[in-house]
């Protein structure tokens, strides 16, 4: 991160020198906003929620903003798609998957007058911001719900890839479950995909066959929660409210709410106040939203609401120290009373009590 910042500052100086004053942003009457999605808009998960944010921009600035999206862009082949948007008059471009990081940076350097925003990455430039959401806050809450509700004392988790964001989500979920049920066990399966309903569904069924009665997921299709619904078990929606796919099984969903952020950033471009920033918002910033708590007893619902309020007010941090690693040794606490942002963003260990190993 340090080297990235230094590099960003150097590049910024170069841009200022080159464009001699043109870097001072001007207010605009009309703004064209482009989006690159990693999945189909119809995934009802990750890309779907980004598209909801896109639609929110169109509603917020009628007549002033036009939007465009390119969907299912393969990460290894995304540079061209991003540059296509840059070349077709877009003023602000959101690239919404980690794998778009290097291509976004390349194109951003080539088009210094266009603003770029990259989701979940860590490389910035004077015209490239990064943003992400603290989904692990929501995962702590659903962990508590699962820990309370489970009868078999075994809960299942379908992960996408063993990357830090997913690992942090698993840990937060498990810490939440442990906080209300010290004996709870977790079984984890990595589907090695963000979006593949067949694979996700198979992973979920494998977990259900092993006796889990609560199913959390960090993949984007409704297939896992649908599998839980079919077996009469419970699950949690991912990225969007998946109630219509699993009305009896969904206890709540961790909804990614990009709309507020996208509207704010578009407004900044309209006003000429856009700056390169790093945003990491959670429940408090309304980036992570819990859909209504349903299908659970009142005491569990009350607990969930209290935890949500505590996280929102800042009195509860899912990664408050001490955090124990799998070997029972305490993880060095680099933040104030909790793990530092860097530790969470680069997490590659499981907490004590998880019996699996992170695939390496």
């Amino acid at each position, binding site marked *: 991160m340090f080297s990235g910042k230094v590099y960003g500052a150097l590049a910024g100086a170069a841009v200022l020198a080159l464009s001699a004053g043109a870097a001072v942003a001007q207010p605009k009457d009309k703004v064209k906003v482009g989006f690159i999605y990693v999945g189909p808009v119809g995934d009802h998960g990750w890309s779907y929620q980004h598209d909801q944010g896109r639609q929110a921009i169109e509603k917020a600035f009628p007549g002033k903003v036009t939007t465009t999206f*390119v969907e*299912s862009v393969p990460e290894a082949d995304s540079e061209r798609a991003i540059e296509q948007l840059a070349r077709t008059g877009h003023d602000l471009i959101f690239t919404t998957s980690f794998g778009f990081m290097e291509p976004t940076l390349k194109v951003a350097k080539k088009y210094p007058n266009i603003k770029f925003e990259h989701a979940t990455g860590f490389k910035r430039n004077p015209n490239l911001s990064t943003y992400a959401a603290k989904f692990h806050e929501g995962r702590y809450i659903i962990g508590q719900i699962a820990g309370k509700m489970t009868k078999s004392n075994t809960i299942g988790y379908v992960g996408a890839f063993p990357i830090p964001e997913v690992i942090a989500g698993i840990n937060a979920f498990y810490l939440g479950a442990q906080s209300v049920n010290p004996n709870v066990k977790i079984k984890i399966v990595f589907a090695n995909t963000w979006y593949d309903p067949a694979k996700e569904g198979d992973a979920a069924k494998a977990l259900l066959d092993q006796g889990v009665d609560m199913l959390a997921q960090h993949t984007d299709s409704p297939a896992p929660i649908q599998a839980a619904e079919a077996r009469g078990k419970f699950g949690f929606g991912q990225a969007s409210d998946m109630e219509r796919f699993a009305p009896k099984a969904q206890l709540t969903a961790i909804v990614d709410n990009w709309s507020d952020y996208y509207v704010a950033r578009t407004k900044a471009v309209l006003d000429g106040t856009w700056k390169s920033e790093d945003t990491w918002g959670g429940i408090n910033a309304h980036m992570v939203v819990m859909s209504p708590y349903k299908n659970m007893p009142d005491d569990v619902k009350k607990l969930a609401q209290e935890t949500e309020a505590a996280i929102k007010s800042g009195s509860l941090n899912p990664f408050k120290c001490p955090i124990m690693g799998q070997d029972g040794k305490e993880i060095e606490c680099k933040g104030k009373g909790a793990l530092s942002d860097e530790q969470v963003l680069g*997490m590659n260990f499981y907490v004590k009590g998880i019996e699996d190993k992170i695939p390496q």
Partner: protein
Amino acid sequence: MRFELTPRTHVSPVMRALAPVAAFITAFLIAGFVIWLMGRSPVAAFDVYVLQPLSDPWALQELLVKATPLALIAIGLSYCFRANLWNIGAEGQYVIGAVLGGWLALKTHGTEAGAWVLPLMLLLGVIGGALYGLIPAFLKTRFGVNEILTSLMLVYVAQLILDYLVRGPWRDPKGFNFPQSVTFDPSATLHPILEGGRVHYGAVFAAIAVLVTAVVLGRTLFGYRLKLTGDAPRAARFAGFSSKATTMAVFAISGGLAGLAGISEVSGQIGQLQPSISPGYGFTAITVAFLGRLNPVGILLAALVVALTFIGGESAQILLKLPLDLTQAFQGILLMCVLAADAMVSYRIRFATRGGGK
């Protein structure tokens, strides 16, 4: 009533040459009709899809970038397919080429290693792809294992090897544990042909591969041997051509070219190793090889056409807000039309009214 296909005794070369043209027109008419049904202008779609990419220098450059790996891999595959050997695993050979070549890039990262790095990387890419291609060839010649299955399965093995490496030993230590290697040094980067452009020297390799293949297939004993092995394996045996040697040779060639495509993409475009380094080039190249009728020049044209459908499809999403599904459907329609046109040139369709049906 039912259809019957009977081979034509005489196939007119003019018809054969015109068949792809007819196929294109038919495909565009079908797609245009669908676009019209969706309430958009088919003329505007044709403009965005075809005319604009072909008249814009930037898009032409992107066309070459996208066509490069497709052409390289498809040229290699044409050796196999001509000999009636089904290498479905070019995607895996591409990955292993990138892995072996990328290994050297990572080994020399941050050192003062000089200009020898890149040529050696490319050579390793070829060797990696060729060796990986030889596995299904060996299994076929030694144990009679079906090469379609083994080559396809080895794709997944290759992808998982890459996945393992970039998550584990080859992970960028400063990369927040994200699964990707460091970015390659300039000495390990395949440079663009024109300064500031995106077309790298991989395009030159593809052009060379086309020329060499045209000569090999048309003018050498090896080319004749392939054709004979494919069309009349018994005759090939009587002529003293070893089918085992042919199998090994064509798999090595096609694996080597796929490996070269892999290392060229990684060092020329992506600039690092990451879990996904191909949007399915190895599989799309199978389509390209058949669209080009296994002819080197045809393959080059087919690679450009398929690249055009990708780039035009993106433009259509951006400029006309047409969905991606339409682009993919169009690629399918195009392939169907080309194959159907070819079939109609070689076969006569008869409507039989008796004897068929239940």
